[in-house]
């Protein structure tokens, strides 16, 4: 097709040429606009300024009230210890696992589990874990009374323990697969296998050699995802509601409580708390950053010492054991959710219910269908917009050389680094002041903030790794840039594009706080329903909703694998994008 023969088309592509360079800026606005609006809406009330309610600041009263709250010390401590503990543990496990086992059959097996593990929403994984480790959980049931001697559950504080250990565990089992995925992507870009080979040929143990030669390069690549993990773990709400302590609760949960208190003064305290949470996360990131220097310095000394590593085997075993344990916790958790969803009466210490029944599913079917509909209605347009913006940005980068600098990467990660509780309540106030009604559209806008970065991160590498020579050949054959994109590049990238969509859907399905706060309660997705049910303690209902919530995130991943295999069944070279 010759463009000159079709003036209309030429004009269109002209427009696109002008439109395309604008896309990166538009993407940033879509992604960062709500964050900035939200922070603005948080800062003013935190200093007592809420003109709509007849309050004008600035005053430090909200801060005084915040620090007067008797639980503040422990709530802050919990936020820090749980966040740091979960991140350090998850990162250590992933590094040891990769160091000791990458390339082995055991590692391949874990790799295959990665997509399903990743797509299990945090809330569902937390429910599953709670049903496993509670004193009346599956583990206690399986070992009672023959091993433990318990014929009634022991009075032990396991779930909701004051140290937040079970909450930490709930975060770790979800962060391990996330960091492992990021590490796998980084391995390919850091010439890891050759470095490992050289170090091993120099007599270094597998783990020691990897830690000395490969880890520094890999860590540089996964640094931002590690920061995201830290920020998330410090400020998570849904996992804290399910597994976290409640005397007092972690700071994030308390902020949400203040924000929903009928007393208007409490909302100011909540805004101050939100800023405190933000400050905590920033401080923790700084501490982490300094820790990086310390580790780097110590690491250099260790490298220079030339030690070949004598503890390799036990250390590698810890890595594999931890990785396998966290995978098993998620999968067994899903299994116990499934059993509960079909359970008739199920007393302690029976390993299985008295009977299986469809009654629970029948009872909740209508609710599940309604919530699933809302979930899909929100996720689909959000993911579509995210994918279009992402491809637009990447194509603009390809055609016009608008590459993201290191600073640009920070912008991309910003919505994931700023705690949700710090800006979502402010964004809610902002939307209200703008006169935007609650409902699906604002929720979609809020979801997009979190979906976009993940879609971008998921698609960027395969998109950039595409062999540009194919494009050159196509152009030489007379194809316009658009035709190269639609006719050559995207079909070849079918699998990564579908995977990015699946990632986006999983992220959207898992969103709790944005749906709850911005939806004003009118938007009920599988996640908000499941977490709301958790307060009622009906395990059969939680089982039903948790499973469907997991399926909503998992099925797109399965499709992302299946569709390319079917479409390209006779085009082997295209199957792996």
């Amino acid at each position, binding site marked *: 097709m010759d463009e000159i023969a079709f003036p209309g088309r030429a004009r269109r592509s002209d427009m696109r040429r002008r439109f395309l360079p604008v896309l990166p800026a538009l993407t940033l606005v879509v992604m960062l606009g709500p964050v900035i609006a939200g922070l603005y809406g948080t800062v003013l009330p935190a200093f007592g300024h809420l003109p*709509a*309610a007849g309050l004008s600041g600035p005053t430090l009263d909200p801060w005084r009230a915040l620090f007067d709250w*008797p*639980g503040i010390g*422990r709530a802050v401590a919990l936020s820090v210890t749980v966040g740091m503990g979960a991140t350090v543990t998850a990162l250590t496990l992933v590094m040891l696992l990769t160091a000791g086992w990458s390339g082995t059959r055991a590692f391949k097996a874990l790799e295959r589990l990665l997509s399903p593990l990743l797509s299990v929403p945090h809330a569902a994984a937390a429910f599953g874990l709670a049903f496993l480790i509670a*004193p*009346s959980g599956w583990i206690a049931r399986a070992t009672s009374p023959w091993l433990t001697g318990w014929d*009634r*559950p022991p*009075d*032990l*504080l396991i779930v*909701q*323990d*004051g140290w937040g250990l079970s909450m930490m565990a709930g975060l770790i089992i979800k962060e391990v697969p996330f960091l492992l995925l990021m590490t796998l992507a980084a391995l390919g870009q850091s010439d890891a296998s050759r470095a490992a080979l050289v170090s091993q040929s120099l007599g270094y143990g597998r783990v020691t050699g990897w830690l000395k030669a490969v880890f520094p390069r890999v860590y540089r690549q996964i640094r931002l995802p590690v920061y995201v993990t830290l920020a998330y773990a410090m400020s998570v709400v849904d996992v804290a509601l399910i597994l976290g*302590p*409640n*005397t*007092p609760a972690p700071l994030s949960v308390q902020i949400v409580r203040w*924000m*929903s*208190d*009928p*007393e*208007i003064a409490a*909302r100011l305290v909540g805004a101050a708390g939100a800023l405190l949470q933000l400050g905590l996360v920033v401080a923790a990131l700084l501490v982490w950053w300094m820790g990086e220097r310390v580790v780097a310095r110590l690491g250099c000394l260790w490298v220079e010492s030339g030690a070949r590593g004598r503890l390799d085997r036990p250390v590698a075993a810890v890595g594999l054991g931890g990785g396998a344990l966290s995978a098993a916790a998620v999968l067994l958790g899903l299994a116990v959710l499934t059993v509960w969803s079909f*359970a*008739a*009466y*199920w*007393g*302690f210490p029976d390993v299985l219910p008295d009977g299986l*029944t469809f*009654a629970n599913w029948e*009872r*909740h079917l209508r*609710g599940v269908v309604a919530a699933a509909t809302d979930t899909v209605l929100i996720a689909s347009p959000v993911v579509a917009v995210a994918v279009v913006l992402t491809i637009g940005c990447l194509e603009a980068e390809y055609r016009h050389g608008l590459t993201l600098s290191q600073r640009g990467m920070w912008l991309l990660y910003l919505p994931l680094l700023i705690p949700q509780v710090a800006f979502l309540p402010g964004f*809610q106030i902002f939307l*209200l*002041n703008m*006169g935007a*009604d*609650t409902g699906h559209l604002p929720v979609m806008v809020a979801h997009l903030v979190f979906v976009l970065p993940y879609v971008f991160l998921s698609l960027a590498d395969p998109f950039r790794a595409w062999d540009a020579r194919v494009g050159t050949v196509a152009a030489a054959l007379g194809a316009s840039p658009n035709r190269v994109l639609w006719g050559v590049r995207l079909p070849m990238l079918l699998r990564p594009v579908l995977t990015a969509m699946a990632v986006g859907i999983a992220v959207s399905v898992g969103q709790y706080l944005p749906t709850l706060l911005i939806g*004003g*309660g*009118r938007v*009920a997705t599988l996640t*908000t*329903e499941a*977490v*709301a*049910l*958790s*307060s*009622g*303690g*009906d*395990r*059969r*209902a939680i089982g039903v909703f948790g499973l469907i919530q997991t399926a909503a995130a998992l099925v797109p991943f399965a499709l992302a694998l299946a569709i390319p295999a079917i479409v390209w069944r006779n085009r082997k070279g295209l199957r792996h994008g």
Partner: protein
Amino acid sequence: MRHLAILATFLPGMALAQTDPADWEAVTEAAEGQTVFWNAWGGSTTTNSFILWVAERVNEDYGVTLEHVKLTDTADAVTRVLAEKQAGEDDDGAIDMIWINGANFAAMKEQDLLFGPFAEQLPNWQYVDVDGKTVQTDFTVPVDGYEAPWAMAQVVFDYDSEDVSPMGSMQEILEWSKANPGRFTYPQPPDFLGTTVLKQILVDVLDDPAVLQEPATDANYDDVTAPLWAYLDELTPTLWRGGEAYPPTGTAMFPLIADDEIDLSISFSPGAASAAIANNELPPSVRTFVLDKGTIGNASFVAIPYNSGSKEGAMVVANFLMSPEAQVRAQDPDVLGYGTVLDVASLPDGDRAAFEALDLGIATLSPEELGTVQAEPHPSWMTRIADDWARRYGVSQ
């Protein structure tokens, strides 16, 4: 002409806002086609199913679409209305009806956030048991028609009859808990059932609980509540998990009984235990008891925010909730097991027969067995007690 056009733009809004609750025909006419967002606690699956049924029925009879907005906390709804008032959203807020508790009702009524009076103008009000049930005051605050009752609640203790027997006073429960540590707990205040437990303790340990009917004052608060704190100081170390963790809500205690983690819990709905047994959530050995001096009781109400855009639809739903049809279904232990607000004796024969034919369930006490209903204290007590509880026990260690 121009004036007419301006008038026309105002008229529909005015008509919407000013339908007289007493003009039932006009109400139902305006209600048809409206969507009512009912904000109600969403943690109980039996309640959720009941609300779905209500939605079907009002849609059939009145063409009103009812959507259940499931809350984790009623206060969420109050916040929402408040935020809308601040933002100037006075005509069509997100909430059309709230299942509201006494403290939130008092707060919203005081701040003029409620529509009304409407409740006593509704057609089904004629059957409501105004004399026998506390439907005209809510936590001692006069209702004045600003909310409509739809269920009666009374504190009952759920116990596993295989492990314990009924007890007659809070003091007896304390002795039992000391002898059997870890077998009792209550929902964490400010959950409404959790604060109800605190009030129940106070009402039971005070020689004369009449003082609680007046607002708490700085002068008498410490003295009056001293026995409560003394009681809790003794009780807390003997609670489930040593009082370091509490279940978030009342229904969250059912699985604890089913797992045999605890033997005694508390419920605000005399029929809830029977309903939970029917759903496999509780073992069949669970029964209920009340205290010798009686237990606290109150009515559940629905209120309509001042800025609802579907007030007529909400009134239709509120009226349907008070209908014999809905009331007999709510009292069925297989459905909800809630007490009725109606005076059954005053009902037409067919409806009365339906109530009399109900099997209240194996664990439900009869109205006679439920005994004396103790009045709810003034909300000022509850607010202060809940705050103090958080200070003393809510941040343990």
